[in-house]
Each structure stands twice: as structure tokens, then as C-alpha cells.
């Protein structure tokens, strides 16, 4: 026995009451990172896992080779969506506080990590999201009303009350049903992509998980199978710096960025400014082209920050400085996108105010409509006997009997 350094315990750089410190984040200048051809060999682009692909600079100008050259319409579409998502999140959060819904999770500050990728994918590409990609559902036509009705578990809930709020689904729009179990969707996306290729389609799959979720076994299973079969899949890690109370270092983000896991498996890893919509779009576009052309999987780490609480069950002031988000060096994705549009002369402060008011109104109106299909406390309610349906294609005998038992009890 000797006086021995004990195991290393990762610490966040600041705890409540301390000054935020993001000096651990290695940043690249906007436009400074080269964009390799999409058929480049891995060994020629390993640095991409350590650099930070950024397009928008501090003056909100688009810089460098990764600039996806989006037109005004696309940029505006993205901004509208972001504004809508934020209005939606804001409303739902308040509705949860008022007890109208049981639970909610915002994506505040992370909107660009789904909107950019969602725009860069084809509608027939399949998405396997984590629980902070509500924007994907909106983009793929799920509809605000349906999403609210789901969160209310009301008569119009697309999963008939079976899942907690925010566990959306949208089969027609090719966005998968969200699981409460972290990371399970990651290797499923790989399987989906393998099937696409086996069937001769050039559709690809994309999946999202959080930084904390990379520690789960399914992360490895996804990367291994994706690498072995060169599956046409994009594996996104949304590194918003925090899991629940644990800093991203607790998933192993301290020594190496999550993007760096990729090259270790033979998969290109891109580290991307997650609060820069142009960068998230461009990275996805690059990886999608690579995958579609048979170049195999890409691991993308979006560096961002969780602006809100983990969920409505969480109180982040217990474990991190209150003002951390405002000190985050990559800023707010909405401010940056708006700034870019203003800079291009396509948008103004006034127009943004009007848009926000419009979206807020839209959300309010939709909420009212949603409530007309029932809330947790006021009818109409879903029929509880339906809980026995859809577990199997045909209801087996024992479930029929249980359903009958339930019915019989009610009649008493």
C-alpha cells in the first residue's frame, strides 16, 4: 500500500453560486475548418472529431466551406420553426406547471440540432430521435395539435394514452416512436438503415441521443454494427453539457469529444457547433450524401447547451450555476439565426416580434383546440378498455378475459 491517487472523479467547472466556466470547450473559428469531399477517407479527416465545424461567425455571417448556401426561404423556414418550437415549449412547460399535463421536456437552446438535420434529410429518410427533437415531428407533419393532444393523453392522442408526454411518434412522417429507455433507438436506426440498403433503397436513417446516453451499451452496439456493415446511418450525439445532474464528463467527454469515438471504430466523427443552424444543416448534408453513396455511417457531435431544466421533474439550480446558459460561448441558436437573416437583410427585429406573437397565438389557439379533445382532468376521456389492444395483433385469450374483468367491475 502506498499513498495513491484515488480514482478520478469528474467535476463540472462550476457549481451553483460559482462563475460559469466554459474554458474546457475547444472552439474553432467560424469557417476555419475544411470540408472534405464526402467520399474522403477517414484518415484524411480525423481532425474533424476535434475541431468544431462552424459557419456563422460572431457577426452572424456565414463563413467557409461548410456554408450550405441556404436560400432565404429555407433560412426563414428554419427560423419560423425554431420560433414555433420555442413558443410550444414555453406553453407546454407552463401547462405542466399548472397541472394540465403531467410532464414535459423542453429543447430550449438545442433547437438547431434537430431543425438543421431535419431540413437536410429527405422526407423518406427515417429518424430515430431522443426526446428533445420535437422539431422533427413538426417538420415531418405530425402537427402541433396532435402533439398537444398526445401530451394531454386525450381522445386524440396518437398513442391512445399509452406513453408519457413528449414520447411522440409519426409513422407517416418517418419519425420513430420515442422510448423512455435511453439509447435503445441508436442500434435500431442502424438496423433500419441496413434494411434500407438490403432492400436496395437509398434512404438513410438518422438517430439522436444525448451526451449522457453515450455511456449506454447500445451506443457501442450501434457503432459496431454501423461500422461492420457500413450502414447508411447518421448517429448524432447532442452534447448539451449535462445529463440530469451530471456533467458530460461523467459520460467520458472530459478526455475526448464524443465525436472522437467514431474514428476509433472506423467511423468519421464530426464535431459541430450545435447552435449554428447552418453548421448542423451542413454536417447532416455531408453525412447524408456520404451514406447515400455507400460511404457508410457518420457520428456527429453537436456541441450545445441545455437551456432549461432536464425535465419538469428537475431543478437544475441544485447542481449548476443559474447563469450558465447565458455564458455559453456558442450562444443561442435562435439569436444567431435571426442575426444571420437580419444581416442578409431578410429579416428585422419587428418581423421577429410579429412572428413570435403569431406563433404564440397559434400555440394558444391550438392548445385550446387540443383541450377540447380532453385533458387529464376533464373529459372526454379515452376508453380505458383500449389499454388491452395493440399489444398483439390479435388479442389473446388472457387479455380478453382481463378486459372483461375490467368491464364487469365497472358495471357493478
Amino acid at each position: 500500500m502506498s499513498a495513491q491517487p484515488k480514482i478520478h472523479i469528474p467535476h463540472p467547472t462550476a457549481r451553483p453560486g460559482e462563475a460559469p466556466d466554459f474554458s474546457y470547450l475547444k472552439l474553432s473559428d467560424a469557417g476555419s475548418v475544411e470540408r472534405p469531399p464526402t467520399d474522403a477517407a477517414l484518415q484524411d479527416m480525423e481532425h474533424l472529431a476535434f475541431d468544431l465545424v462552424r459557419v456563422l461567425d460572431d457577426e452572424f455571417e456565414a463563413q467557409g466551406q461548410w456554408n450550405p448556401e441556404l436560400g432565404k426561404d429555407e433560412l426563414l423556414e428554419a427560423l419560423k420553426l425554431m420560433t414555433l418550437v420555442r413558443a410550444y415549449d414555453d406553453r407546454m412547460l407552463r401547462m405542466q406547471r399548472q397541472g394540465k399535463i403531467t410532464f414535459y421536456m423542453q429543447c430550449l437552446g438545442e433547437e438547431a440540432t434537430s431543425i438543421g438535420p431535419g431540413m437536410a434529410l429527405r422526407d423518406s429518410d427515417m429518424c430515430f430521435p431522443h426526446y428533445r427533437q420535437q422539431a422533427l415531428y413538426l417538420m415531418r407533419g405530425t402537427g402541433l395539435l396532435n402533439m398537444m393532444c398526445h401530451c394531454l393523453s386525450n381522445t386524440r392522442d396518437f398513442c391512445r394514452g399509452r406513453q408519457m408526454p413528449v414520447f411522440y411518434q409519426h409513422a407517416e412522417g418517418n419519425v420513430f416512436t420515442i422510448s423512455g429507455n435511453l439509447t435503445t433507438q441508436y442500434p435500431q436506426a442502424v438496423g433500419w438503415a441496413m434494411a434500407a440498403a438490403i432492400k436496395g433503397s437509398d434512404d438513410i436513417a438518422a438517430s439522436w441521443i444525448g451526451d449522457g446516453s453515450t455511456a449506454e451499451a447500445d451506443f457501442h452496439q450501434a457503432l459496431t454494427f454501423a461500422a461492420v456493415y457500413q450502414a447508411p446511418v447518421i448517429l448524432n450525439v447532442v452534447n448539451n453539457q449535462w445529463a440530469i445532474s451530471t456533467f458530460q464528463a461523467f459520460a467520458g467527454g472530459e478526455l475526448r469529444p464524443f465525436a472522437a469515438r467514431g474514428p476509433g471504430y472506423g467511423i468519421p466523427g464530426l464535431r459541430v457547433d450545435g447552435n449554428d443552424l447552418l453548421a448542423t444543416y451542413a454536417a447532416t448534408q455531408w453525412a447524408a450524401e456520404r451514406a447515400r453513396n455507400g460511404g457508410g455511417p457518420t457520428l456527429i457531435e453537436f456541441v450545445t447547451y441545455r437551456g432549461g431544466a432536464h425535465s419538469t421533474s428537475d431543478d437544475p439550480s441544485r447542481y449548476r450555476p443559474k447563469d450558465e446558459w447565458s455564458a455559453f460561448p456558442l450562444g443561442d441558436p435562435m439569436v444567431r439565426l435571426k442575426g444571420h437573416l437580419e444581416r442578409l437583410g431578410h429579416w428585422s427585429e419587428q418581423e421577429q416580434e410579429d412572428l413570435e406573437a403569431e406563433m404564440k397565438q397559434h400555440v394558444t389557439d391550438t392548445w385550446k383546440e387540443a383541450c377540447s379533445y380532453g385533458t387529464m382532468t376533464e373529459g372526454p376521456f379515452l376508453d380505458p378498455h383500449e389499454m388491452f389492444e395493440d399489444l398483439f395483433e390479435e388479442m389473446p385469450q388472457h387479455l380478453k378475459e382481463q378486459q372483461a374483468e375490467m368491464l364487469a367491475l365497472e358495471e357493478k
Partner: protein
Amino acid sequence: MAQMNMIQAINSALDVMLERDQNVVVMGQDVGYFGGVFRCTDGLQARHGEHRVLDSPISEGGIVATAIGMGVNGLRPVAEIQFADYIYPGFDQIASELARIRYRSDATFTAPVTIRSPCGGGIRGGQTHSQSPEGIFAHVSGIKTVMPSNPYDAKGLLISAIESNDPVVFFEPKRIYNGPFDGDPEKPAQSWASHAKGEVPEDYYSLPLDQAEVIKEGDEITIVTYGTLVHVALATAELLGVNAEVIDVRTLMPLDVMTLQKSVEKTGRCLVAHEATRFCGYGAELVASIQQACFWHLEAPIERVTGWDTPYPHAFEWSYFPGQKRMAAGIRRVMEAG
């Protein structure tokens, strides 16, 4: 004696054991600095240091596996799985390793690991935050499976689990963390303060890991249950005016058949109840064991009151939960049969 709810009782058990035995370590997601999403480990890291109360990566398999390695190296890890629904990524390490290391090595290696995990519904957790998987663990040879129904038992049983050289999976019904719940969601929330089992010694004590408890004596019917449903059974029997003997199994494996047998031989009627799904669940073993031990005394078939054989749907929590209505119907079926 102090008044404690179940969270405080569990916290106290961990605290006492961290204090008594330098080899005890606590680990799990968010259990360290933050004190656990249900606050069961609140304050423990500050008191015992960050090398003894460890935050873990979000990897249930890794948590169980590293706990095993620590156990093999002389520590006594108490690992938290944040929700029982998330224990499955660790299932291989539990069933193939933890349960078998002593056996396969002829006891030359052992891993005295305790795995704590909140289970059960009643907090609007939907299908991924409400499961009761105890039946699966009870079937795995080589681990003990425990589920307390009150703060006093929770502390005493958890201390025994930690002290045990056998691996223990310890399920905590989260619906009764803050107070007993008799199955009626319309009633105002109860607190443990007014409950006899909310009286908990602050110091060390332990309870045996192989004894069921007769919670209430009676002679008309035996209700064998555990966890949240103990309270539902008591309330329903009272409501019906049935003089039920209510038995809290507490340790599901090993099962204290003798206590059940004595009771059923007396009452001649038996109802088995749990919140978990029915088919091939723990209740099936209770029925099988009891019918074998007490066949000649049984005046009616043993009935089961359980969760339905579906996931726990968010919207239908109270239609899913086997509350007083289903318990009453079950009691009546048993009482009226024959």
C-alpha cells in the same frame, strides 16, 4: 425513534452503513452530488466523500459490472438503478454473473452487491417508469429479492441486504416513498408520520431477509402481498368488513412459506396480490407454493389480484393499478367460492 418516510429511512440505512463499514460504497446515476432523483442519497456524498458515494455514467450494465468488481475486491457496493424499468441493460451482469460468482467459484470469490431500485406505478410515469419486475429476479437462482412496504422495514431490510454476503436486489415501491397509499387516488395524500411503521430508529438495526410478516391477523381469508398492495389489502378488507389476515412477504426470495402456510391452514382461503403483471409473475409462485403446502385446507381456489398483462399506460394509471375495487372483487371471489 424518529419519524421517517421511506426515502429518509433508506437514506438513513445507507448513512448508517457508510458510517459503520468503510467498505460500503454507494453508486448510481445522480446519486452523488445531487443526492438522487428521489433524494434517497441526499447528503451522503457531502458526509462520506466523493470516493464513497459515486456518481456513475448512465450505463446500468456498467454500474452492475463495476459494482461486482468492487465487491470481488472487498467493497460492499450499494448500486442504485434510477428506475426498475431501466434495470434490464444490467440484467446479464445480474443473472449471469452476480448471481453465480459465488457458486461457480465454490465460494472462493463473492460479490456482496446490493442493487436498489424504485419500482411500481402511481406517479404518472407511464409505461417506462412504472414497472414491477420482481418476478423476473425472483426466478434467477442466486440472488435474493426484497421489497419493503414501509419505512421501518425499508431501513432494517436494506441494512441486512448491505450486510449480506449474498447479492440482493432491493425494490422500493416509489408510490409509497412519501406515505402509505391505500389504492384510492382520490383521497388526500397520507404521510408516514401518522403510521406506526413510520417510526424508525435512527441507529443501526436489521431485519431478517427470510421472514414474511403478518401485518394484521384475521381468520376469514389470507391476503398474501407485498409493497404498495399491502396497504390496499388492509384498506379494502377493512372496508368490506372482512376479517382478513394480511401478510407482507417482504423478502420474495427466499420465500417464507411457513408463515403463509400457517395462515392459510387457519383461514382456508387465500388471495395473492401484487402490482406487477400477472402472467408468470411472482403471484404465480405464491399460488403454486401455497396450493402445494395447504391444498387440503383450501376451501376455495386461490385468486390473484394483479396489474394487467399490458404495459402501464400513462392515461390509465388508475385503471391499471390493482386498487380497492379489484382487491374487493378478488376478496369476494375467494370468500364466496365453494
